[in-house]
């Protein structure tokens, strides 16, 4: 099964360049684990970067650099391929598990209103927040807009909004242009990974499930 809603291309490019903030990078890398198509795009972007580096004007190192590197070769341990941490529940792909201490039960869940729980995972140095959102089956989120960017990726279950139906691996990108009203699928809870890059603005009077994210 492959995702059908992908991250915006400029995010994939920034991830390949290494200029994307850490919170968004976790979400993109987690999507890449589930999406061969986007991995392909990132590979192409890296290939472009590789060619650009080939053409850079070289900056010479000091005379002893090669010698000291050669002297270090035998001391340099050959890297052992990392043994993948066990995916206990199979829901969280790497690298996300590293940010949840392995399993979902380790996340620090907080109730955020009827049928909605949020677990903050990290705030990166640029102030972008990464967190998990768990919404009970059938819960409808009040209509809301965004003053900045919000990235949502489904990890299990699914939801629908004006922009379509979202299932595991799918990403919804919302910026200030987008106002949406997500509704969790009826057949079970929906677990999402969320990156917020700015405060959310409710267009409805009722507090949304995302509004309280502001409080962190």
């Amino acid at each position, binding site marked *: 099964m492959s995702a059908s809603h992908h991250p915006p291309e400029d995010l994939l490019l920034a991830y390949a360049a*290494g200029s994307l903030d850490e919170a968004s990078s976790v979400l993109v890398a987690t999507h890449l684990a589930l999406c061969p198509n986007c991995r392909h*795009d990132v590979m192409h972007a890296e290939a472009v970067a590789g060619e*650009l*580096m080939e053409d850079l004007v070289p900056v*010479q*190192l000091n005379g002893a650099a*090669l010698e000291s590197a050669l002297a270090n070769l035998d001391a340099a341990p050959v890297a052992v391929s990392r043994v993948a941490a066990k995916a206990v529940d199979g829901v969280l792909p790497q690298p996300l598990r590293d940010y949840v201490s392995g399993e979902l039960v380790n996340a620090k869940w907080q109730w955020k209103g009827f049928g909605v729980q949020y677990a903050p995972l990290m705030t990166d140095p640029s102030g972008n927040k990464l967190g998990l959102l768990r919404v009970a089956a059938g819960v409808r989120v009040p209509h809301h807009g965004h003053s900045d960017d919000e990235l949502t990726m489904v990890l299990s279950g699914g939801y629908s909004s004006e922009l379509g139906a979202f299932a595991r691996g799918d990403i919804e990108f919302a910026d200030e242009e987008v106002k949406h009203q997500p509704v969790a699928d009826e057949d079970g809870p929906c677990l999402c990974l969320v990156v917020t890059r700015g405060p959310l603005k409710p267009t409805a009077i009722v507090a949304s499930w995302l509004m309280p994210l502001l409080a962190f």
Partner: protein
Amino acid sequence: MTLVASSQAIAMTDLLVKIARDRDKQAFAALFAYYAPRVKGYLIRQGADDGTAEELAQEALLTAWRKADRFDPAKASAGTWIFTVARNLRIDALRKGRRPEFDPEDPAFVPDPAESPDAAIQADQTRVRIRNAMADLPEEQATVIRLSFFEDKPHGEIAEQLGLPLGTVKSRLRLAMRRIKSSLGD
């Protein structure tokens, strides 16, 4: 010029394969002589001072020695792979951040559809096609591509630097990547 650069880079791929297979120090010395100054140039473009760039360039090549067995010539050229090594070291060192990456050994990982047997030949052709497509990019697209890979800046800052709306920068990046992709027959 392009052809010379290209054949040299193919030779570099062979060097990495030798390092992985034979732990060949002469191959390492040749790889170092070619890439360490390029990696240093890249790091200086990213805002590292001379001393830090020098140190990280050495570290990048030592990492290439240690991890050479993970280099897959069917997936990337030597230059591309060394770029990714240098990029990750830079994120750790200069930004004090982490580089989150997927793990192909992860049971939750969704693998590629089966690869074609001539993937290695394709990787080589891919390089030539990417170089040609990049040479053919309109200057305005080439500029945003270069800036987005070499300046450790969000696209918003690149837009400010160029005096362009963010949307224009994003659409130029998108157009450039589409042209490159279509040259690969994707």
